[in-house]
């Protein structure tokens, strides 16, 4: 499933889809399409608000059925880069239903979960198919210009770990 053994500082996944880039772009930016695939198995996405423009906000609810009834998790964030059919970058934080950020620790997430993460999606048309590279990295809360560093960090960590395994 993965082609490395945990040597990267961000999750980076490259996939090829048998669909045109325009459709893959909609998968990320059209609430109806997004809700169809994003949640875990058996979950629903009752809310997906997406103001897809730089500085626009997003609010997504994932609802799961548990023995104690439905459980909702809310995520908010902001779009940082929007280049139609090419590149989408947005931040993500856990929140309440009004989009107020809550700390991951309060939500019972594992310690070490950064309060803000950044998702970067890059699409490329390859003869009618689409190659997609998704990078998900933790970003420091005081670093609004974080878009670029996840990639550099990724490379650096791989380099460092290769060297430290000598």
């Amino acid at each position, binding site marked *: 499933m993965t082609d490395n053994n945990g040597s*990267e500082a961000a999750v980076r996944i490259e996939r090829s889809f048998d669909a045109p880039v325009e459709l893959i772009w909609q998968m990320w930016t059209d609430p109806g399409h997004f809700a169809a695939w994003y949640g875990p198995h058996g979950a629903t996405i009752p809310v997906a608000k997406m103001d897809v423009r730089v500085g626009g906000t997003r609010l997504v609810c994932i609802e799961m059925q548990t023995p104690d009834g439905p459980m909702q998790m809310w995520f908010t964030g902001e779009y940082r880069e929007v280049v139609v059919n090419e590149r989408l970058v947005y931040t993500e934080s856990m929140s309440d239903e009004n989009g107020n950020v809550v700390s991951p*620790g309060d939500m019972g997430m594992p310690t070490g979960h*950064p309060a803000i993460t950044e998702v970067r999606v890059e699409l490329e048309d390859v003869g009618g198919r689409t190659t997609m590279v998704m990078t998900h990295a*933790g*970003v420091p809360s005081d670093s609004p210009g974080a878009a670029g560093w996840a990639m*550099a960090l990724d490379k650096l960590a791989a380099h460092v770990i290769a060297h430290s395994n000598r």
Partner: protein
Amino acid sequence: MAIDEDRLSETFAALANSTRRAILALLAEGAATVNELAEPFEMTLPNISKHIKVLERAGLVRRGQRAQYRPCALDAAPLEEVSTWAEQYRPVWEARFDRLDDYLKQLQPQRKTGENDD
């Protein structure tokens, strides 16, 4: 593996600066003195020292105690903690993209899916 949350924040903060990442990249090649590190950056020594102190506090750089040059060396352990966080999310995304693939097949059943993907 337990992760120290404060330390992780400190690591992220330390890495959120291009000069500091460049310093780490240089140190990945081997230990270096502050003078050697300052050279490629056209920065004053006090300035570069400030960046090195931030990296030291985050545990990403260790400095030798004995020589008067006190060479800097990289410590990759905090980077591995960052990596541990990231790896928890890999299977989540892989599963999402499996579902995306299925959904795309429902949406465009007419499309030929002859070639092997990935």
